[in-house]
């Protein structure tokens, strides 16, 4: 971690116009993420977390304000996204899915296949390289999704509740695997989650957002050393202290969101 700024979000506002009503999803959001930092974003449902991620990914345009992603290598794609739902292509074999980002960049077949197989190996999935997604379980599909994002070697990684749909055991295993892979790459990451646990296990910093419209409520630092061990962390005093702090912040916002309805 060299401390250089990697992502800067300046006065970001996003308003969705649907017919006569307009919804302010994000209001004047400012934040920076340093190079090699893992930022987790938590907030009540509908606080614009996903909208912010989609703007960072270039899938949505801001109404006002700007986002900067500092590119170091011209050949790399700016972002790779791990979506929440089942987003690996059913018409491609596992290995073809993992190498998709590299294929889009025009990396020759032999080279990109080698990289894809390497990431499949890291995820313990190399045996499944030639299968089609319909032959795999939900947990395996989401692993491939993560492998696809890492293999494309982007400037920053964006993850939108990637493990939200998984059962507890699978979630734990995938969190562990993500930590292991990430701690070998230290790629700047923005990770959206509902779970305070997950945010504390994975993040260097945690951004707490307000209920709609989404604003920055607090930015906390998670001072837990890496490499991390998920089981040990959960009983550490830092974890318990931060958990309570974040919950206090979140509870206010969840209550506010409830009163609005």
């Amino acid at each position: 971690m060299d401390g250089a700024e990697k992502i800067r979000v300046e006065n970001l506002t996003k308003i969705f116009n649907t017919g006569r009503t307009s919804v302010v999803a994000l209001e004047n959001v400012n934040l920076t993420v340093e190079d090699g930092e893992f930022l987790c974003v938590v907030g009540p449902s509908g606080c614009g977390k996903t909208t912010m991620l989609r703007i960072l990914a270039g899938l949505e345009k801001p109404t006002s304000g700007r986002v900067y992603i500092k590119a170091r290598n011209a050949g790399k794609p700016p972002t790779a996204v791990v979506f929440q739902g089942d987003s690996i292509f059913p018409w491609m074999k596992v290995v073809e899915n993992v190498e998709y980002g590299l294929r889009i960049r025009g990396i020759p077949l032999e080279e990109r296949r080698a990289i894809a197989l390497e990431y499949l190996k890291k995820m313990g999935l190399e045996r499944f390289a030639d299968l089609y997604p319909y032959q795999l379980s939900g947990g395996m599909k989401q692993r491939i999704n993560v492998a696809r994002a890492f293999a494309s070697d982007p400037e920053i990684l964006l993850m939108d509740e990637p493990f939200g749909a998984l059962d507890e055991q699978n979630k734990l295993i995938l969190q562990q695997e993500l930590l292991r892979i990430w701690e070998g790459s230290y790629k700047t990451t923005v990770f959206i989650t509902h779970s305070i646990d997950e945010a504390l296990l994975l993040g260097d910093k945690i951004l707490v957002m307000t209920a709609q419209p989404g604003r920055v409520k607090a930015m906390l630092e998670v001072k837990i050393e890496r490499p991390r061990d998920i089981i040990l962390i959960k009983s550490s005093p830092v974890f318990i202290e931060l958990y309570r702090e974040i919950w206090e912040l979140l509870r206010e916002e969840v209550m506010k969101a409830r009163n609005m309805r």
Partner: protein
Amino acid sequence: MNAVQEKLNQTIKMEDLADDAENNSRQKKAFFLKTFSFLSPLFLLLLWEVMAALKLIDVRLFSSPSRIFETLIPLVSSGELLYHTLISTSRIVLGFVAGAVPGVILGLSMGLFPPVRALLMPLVAVTFPIPKLAIMPLILIVFGLGESSKIFTIAIGVFYLVLINTMAGVLNIDPIYIDVAKSFGASKIQFYTTVAFPGALPMIFAGLKLGMGTALLLIVAAELSAARAGVGWMIWRAYDMFDIERMFCALIVLAFLGFVFSYLLDLLEKIVIPWKKR
């Protein structure tokens, strides 16, 4: 020690036997069901034959399996039936390809490009419901009495079904796949080849299968007018001559053609879409 081992082996053997017995009964069940599905047509044929023999039905109108079989043998051995079958088959195949290829191309472009869709959709919506049989006289006037009028009749029927299904296939691709392609920075052409086309393939095949059904329907109608050969022509000729047995022989061929074509399309689908759960 040895006794225990022996006992253990025995239990394992017994479990094996139990497994075998279960497998056996399952296989027997499958075999039974398979024979069962053969039995119903056989029973119908038998019933038909008996009713004809007992004069419960008028054989001049309904014939009987044995009479049809007697007519079928010389028709096959003389090569006459094969001749008509080949002529109809070539019309179906040419018409099918002539309808399916532009159907897929136009369907893809209407699905992918909103301006093309806006331009052509009203035309398609207005002309699609017209029964293809209703425009056959027009087709005859324009294309004449030769082969092209028959091929065109089939092509137009196949074209619409393939076009509409292909377009729907593109429009119904899950938006998350579009987001994935976009987020990795796919160009338009990369999006077409890696997402739009493969994503639409299952629907394209649904269109092709529907089109094949329509092609079989239209071949009979197309060969009604101004044809001198073909399975459809055989049916109409038999009608004129009141030759019920010949008519049934032609119907058997049509059923056979339908079976073969749908088998071939299924085979092609398995090769082209190996990723589909079956």
